[in-house]
């Protein structure tokens, strides 16, 4: 609902190109958009845009890739997300462009406006709404809607009953909503194509380039489609006389182990530590067990000493992502021959993993249930039995040094455990003893005198087979 108190308030009807005394309906992609005025007099005029979403059609016409129940029972019909933004753009397209034949001076004027959005979906809470709207001149009031009054223990939903007030051109107000509703929603419901980039740039003209959250806005508006993000960023950088590298920097892959402060340096340090160990060991043929999307693989490939690199992950999509990230299909043949990516699981033995110089398990074991560790131990140390094994895992003692990490919380929602240095040492030494390895430990990251380093690393080396008996 959009309200103005600029007298005569009923001029809002001219600005929106919709008559205040009629209820009108417009077909839009998701269903029917209705426009009517709950109030229209000299002092105040409120236009309401009501989007009547057809839930069955939403499913039938929608993408058919994800087959989950969530596709059918979902909040789309009730929230002010991307569907509403699309309806807004189509029903008020002239107003959004600032065109008004009847009152051109009004369209150009700053007028007092108030926008009420009863269910604004935003997983990141009120704070993000403020970060996005305040720089544009809005005052934000946003109250969370409780999940279910019958189960107060469940807390609040991700919906905010939101009211924005400010003085600005109506066209600007509409373009803010058009861009920022889907950004807050975070889930776009139509394919992002090249024309989406144009739409964003058009709607954001005049304000997006200067917005402090422009990177986040572009990224989320374009639903994480990186190539498009890049294009959009390049053009934004042009518009803002900025170096594209500076904008793109924020696009570095999110690090899996989300150590709250300065995550990148630790991830980088960890990879460097692992590479250093491999060099010391003189390993030539290396397994990256749990390679994820290939951050370590990239550096392994760069090391010309390594003649064979095998990346293994339990997730088929991670393997695909790694292959894409490493651009395997474009690699020169001689390079390409050095690397193999394959799906496998460390809870099963895999005969093809036998006979390597070294295996790396970087930030892997803590993603395996402790009860399954014996199976992993058997698969790695008894079946694959490489000459050396490098294992890294978080040091839970160090968690107290992360200010934003709630006490007692693990660093990643999928961590099944996080060990102290003593726990890691105990496990490692027992494994080494059972399988005929020696083991040594090293810190990764600053070695805090009280709580140790953020990451701990163990190097297992297979003992030489004892001299054969007579």
């Amino acid at each position: 609902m959009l309200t103005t108190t600029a007298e005569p308030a009923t001029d809002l009807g001219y600005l929106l190109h919709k008559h205040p005394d009629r209820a009108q309906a417009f077909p839009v992609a998701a269903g029917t958009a209705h426009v009517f005025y709950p109030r229209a007099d000299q002092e105040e005029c409120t236009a309401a845009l009501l989007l009547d979403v057809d839930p069955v059609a939403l499913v039938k016409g929608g993408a058919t890739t994800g087959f989950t129940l969530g596709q059918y029972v979902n909040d789309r019909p009730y929230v002010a997300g991307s569907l509403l933004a699309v309806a807004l753009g189509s029903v008020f397209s002239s107003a959004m462009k600032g065109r008004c034949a009847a009152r051109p001076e009004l369209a150009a004027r700053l007028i007092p406006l108030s926008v009420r959005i009863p269910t604004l979906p935003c997983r990141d809470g009120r704070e993000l709404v403020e970060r996005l709207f305040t720089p544009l001149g809005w005052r934000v009031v946003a109250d969370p809607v409780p999940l279910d009054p019958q189960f107060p223990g469940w807390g609040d939903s991700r919906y905010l009953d939101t009211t924005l007030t400010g003085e600005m051109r109506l066209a600007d107000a509409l373009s803010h909503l058009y861009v920022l509703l889907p950004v807050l929603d975070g889930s776009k419901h139509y394919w992002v194509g090249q024309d989406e980039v144009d739409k964003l740039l058009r709607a954001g003209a005049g304000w997006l380039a200067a917005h402090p959250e422009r990177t986040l806005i572009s990224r989320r508006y374009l639903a994480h489609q990186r190539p498009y993000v890049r294009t959009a960023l390049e053009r934004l950088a042009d518009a803002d006389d900025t170096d594209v590298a500076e904008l793109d920097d924020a696009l570095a892959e999110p690090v899996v182990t989300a150590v709250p402060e300065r995550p990148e340096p630790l991830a980088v340090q960890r990879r460097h530590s692992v590479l250093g160990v491999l060099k010391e060991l003189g390993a030539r043929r290396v397994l990256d067990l749990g390679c994820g999307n290939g951050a370590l693989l990239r550096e392994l490939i760069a090391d010309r000493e390594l003649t064979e690199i095998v990346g293994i992950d339990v997730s088929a999509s991670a393997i695909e992502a790694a292959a894409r990230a490493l651009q395997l299909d474009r690699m020169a043949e001689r390079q390409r021959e050095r690397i193999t990516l394959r799906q496998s699981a460390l809870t099963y033995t895999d005969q093809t993993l036998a006979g390597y110089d070294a295996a790396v398990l970087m930030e892997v074991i803590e993603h395996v249930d402790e009860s399954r560790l014996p199976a992993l131990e058997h698969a790695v140390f008894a079946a694959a039995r490489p000459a050396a094994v490098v294992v890294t895992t978080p040091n839970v003692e160090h968690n107290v040094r992360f200010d934003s990490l709630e006490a007692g919380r693990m660093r990643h929602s999928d961590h099944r455990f996080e060990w102290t240095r003593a726990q890691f040492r105990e496990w490692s030494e027992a494994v080494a003893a059972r399988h005929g390895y020696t083991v040594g430990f090293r810190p990764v990251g600053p070695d805090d005198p009280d709580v140790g380093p953020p990451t701990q690393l163990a190097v297992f080396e297979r003992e030489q087979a004892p001299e054969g008996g007579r």
Partner: protein
Amino acid sequence: MSEPRVLRIPDMALVVLVGASGSGKSTFARTHFAPTQVLSSDAFRAMVADDENDQSATTAAFEALHVVAGKRLAAGRITVVDATSVQREARVPLVALAREHDVLPVAIVLDVPEAVCRQRNEARTDRTFGPHVIRRQRGELHRSLRALAKEGFRRVHVLRSVEEVDAARIEIEPLLNDRRTETGPFDVIGDVHGCRGELEDLLTTLGYDLVRDEEGRAVGAHHPAGRRAVFVGDLVDRGPDTPGVLRLVMGMVAGGDALCVCGNHEQKLVRALSGRTVQVTHGLAESLSQLSGQSEEFRAAVREFCDGLVSHYVLDGGRLVVAHAGLPERFHRRASGRVRSLALYGDTTGETDEYGLPVRYPWANDYRGAATVLYGHTPTPQVEWVNGTMCLDTGVVFGGKLTALRYPEREVVAVVAQQVWYEPKRPLAPPPAARAPARAPDVLDIADVTGKRMIATAHHGTITVRAEQAAAALEVMSRFAVDPRWLLYLPPTMAPTATSTRDGLLEHPAEAFAGFRAAGVPLVVCEEKHMGSRAVVLVCRDDAVGAQRFGMPGPGTVVTRTGRPFFPPALTAQLLERVLAAVTAAGLWDELDTGWLLLDAELLPWSAKAGGLIRDQYAAVGAAAGAALSASGAALAAAAARGIDVADLMAGMTARAAGATAFREAYRRYCWPTDGLAGVQLAPFQVLAAEGATFHTRAHDWHLAVADRLHEAGTELFRRTASLVVDTTDEASVAAGTTWWEDLTGAGGEGMVVKPLANLTREGRRLVQPGVKVRGPEYLRLIYGPEYAAPANLERLRGRGLGVKRALALREYALGLEALERLAAGEPLWRVHECVFAVLALESEPVDPRL
């Protein structure tokens, strides 16, 4: 015309024809072998170069020929190579190929006069080479003749004239190890090592009548029921009476009462008796000194006997293999030096243990073959099945036991040693493998589950799992499921009843009853659905059962339909403690003669598992709908008050608001707070398996009666499942069933499942659906959304297709049964896991999840 000449060819051999161009090899091959058995170099030249005489294509042609020959030999098919093969260089790779596949290479030489060859070549327009070529080839052939055996050809047949070639006849001989026609029953006996007294005891215990000579020495044994003994080798050395054991076993073998494979000790004894230099260690000294007291004649007989022992036997149609040190599947029924060496000595890791003895490679852990393999060689304190294999050497000579396995009964019979006859170099127990944390036989290999898989099921034929389905399941299985040793079953998906066309309804019992009636099922049982979560409960009588039966010390598990645990370990243990108490109180351990029980159940409340989903999905939708619709209502009311015509819009909003309210009511019904286990309930409805037994052929009223007894024994934990038997051919009964469902769902209940009362049911050769669900209209709001029941929406939803879901339900059902039957039959873990994994893999199939 010469005498017909019979050329004997061992089964699976690689036959190499040797002869100059024009010697008639192709005609010979065509006459005696099937066209597909013959690989001709000419044909391969044509294949790779479009010209069978293009000599520049020879290298490529032979590469291709070797590849195809290799594939045939790997599959154990007789293969004939039709090329001149007169040069050693051409034959060497063929001998190597035969050895690589452990089959015997055979040469058939066609040595016909030069004139004949020349004449034949001249008759052909495509052969342009001169007579000197034939002369050269014949020269090479003659120089080769003597070397063929040395090159490794195990048989060499030379046909020296056109007449001999024409008169030859081929006979395929089975290999010595091939006794597939002998079907038993057998008593397979472990390493005896000269322990005659124990052997006589064991044979007597097994029911054999000993035959004695005038001196009272056992010289044979005969089983009145015609059973035959099979010795796994190592009859000799270390023990007190090697000659006595040999006399008895040789007599049994001669009398057709026994078979015996060669052990490493017999092999060495033969060498010693033949006067070769051997190290007289490992108890050989005892044999030699005992035999020195025997007659020269007896020693000669012993040498002949031991020398004639074959490396392994394949018995009972290929279902049973006996080899002294065991044998991986690819070597079964093969013959080569390598096979003999593996069968006698086994594989070693190349390492030695702290006693200086070679560490034996645990080949049985990798064994995935269908044949049962029985062997000895490695003394173990206790026999156990490892992937369908069993080591029967229980160290009688070291004071252990002498063990036999009755086949096909699979019953172990043992007699204890009279004394320690020989001090072991390495203590009998525990084997070094026991130090490994994962129990060796249960180690699963990635190859057991990944890639495209074809699983033969007893009830639904072969079920295919596509590679990408397996890939999807692998992640879930390894990252979230419980240990596979606990994960013995996953429940199949269930199809809904055919879609109803009644007003306001998508599902109704009428279609379910009619469906079963049409499938020829008169009696069905309706079972109440509790709107819990599907749970599979494995409970062990005590931790020892878990350790012994499953290799998992612990009370059992309670898992979801994707194999995840419901609760953290401590809470699971508490829950199982209560289940255990109820099972014990109900007297089920004795009644089902088992130490563990696998139950199919629902776990309540739904919010116990699905708390996150309910909050993020259902409650969120409810909250959004509530907030949005009330704001819309207020705005519309204001507009209406201004005299604007929004009546239609308001009516629509009111209906939607009612739908949203009903939706909230629907999920709230299935949520209640739980604290630890307080509030958690189990509603079992089927007994899946117990030791040695499955129950899918017992009628559902039996299963429900068991469930009722559990409810009576533990009323707080166990919830009863209400049920009603309906006769689908009786109108009154069908009406009663319908009323029953209306009562269940009228109060908002989830609905019911309709199953054939008899349980596993077929219609002709096809499986009937094991159950269909008939869900209540209010519950369906959670599935189809708050506004599904609006007539326009309902009309469109009725177009849902059920075919894929039904087919999937049957496949998963059959896989589940297969897992249970394999479990009950005591099959190795990988065989059970393969089926369980396949159920999970099929669940990744993109099927409308609302069905």
